[in-house]
């Protein structure tokens, strides 16, 4: 059963068409990686799914809720998002960052929320840093707190928007480990990533975007080893050259 359904999605920024008729479905438990060049619309697509961007045409249904202004609260409760720049709340400790969504959205009592938060921090291997403020955490640690925070509302889908792009190379691994662990646990995930090795290894399906369209999709092996379109062939080639 599809947990995300996108139908002929259109998104424009001024005169520029960023998403041009996207059709995409994500099944429950599936890990889908979206790849493509910068500017191909990957991040915008992700931001449309939880309503951070308004759409100009088409239809999105996420976790059973139509993505439209009146239903955003339900959509976002079920669809967690993790950002490239972490977006943690700097005035709150790691623990409070993870507890806050439950307190606000579920009216969970403070003590109970903190208990849950401690458990979530343990899940991302940060039990020792619960009382630290984001400013005193490394990039990798901050991103793991952000993952714990996104999990706090027990979402059915996680959207990951280039979550390792702002990290120093030595911290990429610790974040991807957590994501891989979540994938093994059956979490549905839609990730925009530049980590091709990781995409290949963790994703059930790759979606290659080009010029605001889904250009090609399939298993990682089929896409990397037998690219059908010229655009993807070029893209794979450019990665090989870089790597």
């Amino acid at each position: 059963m599809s947990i995300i359904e996108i139908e002929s999605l259109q998104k424009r920024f001024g005169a520029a068409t960023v998403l041009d008729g996207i059709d995409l479905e994500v099944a429950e438990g599936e890990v889908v990686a979206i790849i493509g060049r910068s500017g191909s619309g990957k991040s915008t697509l992700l931001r449309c799914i939880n309503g951070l961007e308004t759409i100009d045409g088409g239809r999105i249904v996420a976790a059973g809720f139509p993505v439209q202004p009146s239903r955003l609260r339900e959509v976002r409760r079920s669809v967690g998002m993790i950002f490239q720049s972490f977006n943690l709340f700097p005035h709150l400790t790691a623990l409070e960052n993870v507890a806050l969504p439950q307190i606000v959205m579920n009216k969970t009592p403070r003590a109970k929320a903190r208990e849950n938060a401690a458990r979530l921090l343990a899940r991302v291997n940060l039990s020792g840093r619960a009382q630290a403020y984001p400013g005193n955490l490394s990039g990798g640690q901050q991103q793991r707190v952000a993952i714990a925070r996104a999990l706090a509302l027990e979402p059915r889908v996680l959207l990951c928007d280039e979550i390792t792009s702002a990290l120093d190379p030595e911290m990429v691994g610790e974040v991807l480990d957590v994501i891989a662990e979540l994938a093994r646990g059956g979490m549905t995930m839609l990730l925009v990533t530049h980590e091709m090795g990781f995409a290949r290894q963790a994703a059930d399906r790759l979606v290659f975007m080009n010029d605001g369209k889904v250009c090609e999709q399939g298993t990682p092996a089929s896409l990397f080893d037998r690219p059908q379109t010229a655009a993807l062939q070029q893209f794979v080639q450019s990665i090989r050259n870089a790597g």
Partner: protein
Amino acid sequence: MIREFGLVEFLYLVSAMKWTLALSLLAFVCGGLLGLVVALLRVAPVAPLRWLAIAWIQTFQSTPLLMLLFLMFFGLALFGLSQDAFVSVTVALTCYASAYFGEIWRGAIQAVPQTQWQGSAALGFTFLEQMRHVILPQSVRIATPPTVGFMVQLIKNTSLASIIGFNELTYAAQYINNLTLKPILIYGTVGAMYFAVCFPLYLLSRRLEVKFRVDH
């Protein structure tokens, strides 16, 4: 009969100062509460609310406080609402302060990075939940130094209340001066009394500025 400026006269000034402080405090509290509403409307996601806040801010920032005092004093009396100078002054200062606080706090709210709005929006927070839990706690740090700075303005501006006959420090100074005919001594003393209240606030604002700059 001309009196000397002695202890009794000085104590009279001190007791009038209570009204200056009371007026300042009241204007700060009422103006602050109203100013918070103005600031929230000013950044609200609904355009007409923002226009309303802009109109409010511009109206009270672009008219002299003295005109505001006259309008309140005679206006409230005209509509039979109040003939009390204290009420008129409080209302006028509240409107005046709310416009400035609204603008100061709007700046502080908008100084919080967009990513904080996005991070909290993605968790499903409503506008007011974002404000309360994420944006305002961070704005307070940014807003504190200019807020304290404006309090100094507010205290000094209460002296205008003397013109419509409210017996605060400046009014009392005029009264004592009429009795003693020692304007330099009297107004010098009163100036020093304002200074004694405002200067520590100024120092506080400077300290907060430095403190928050370091923390950021």
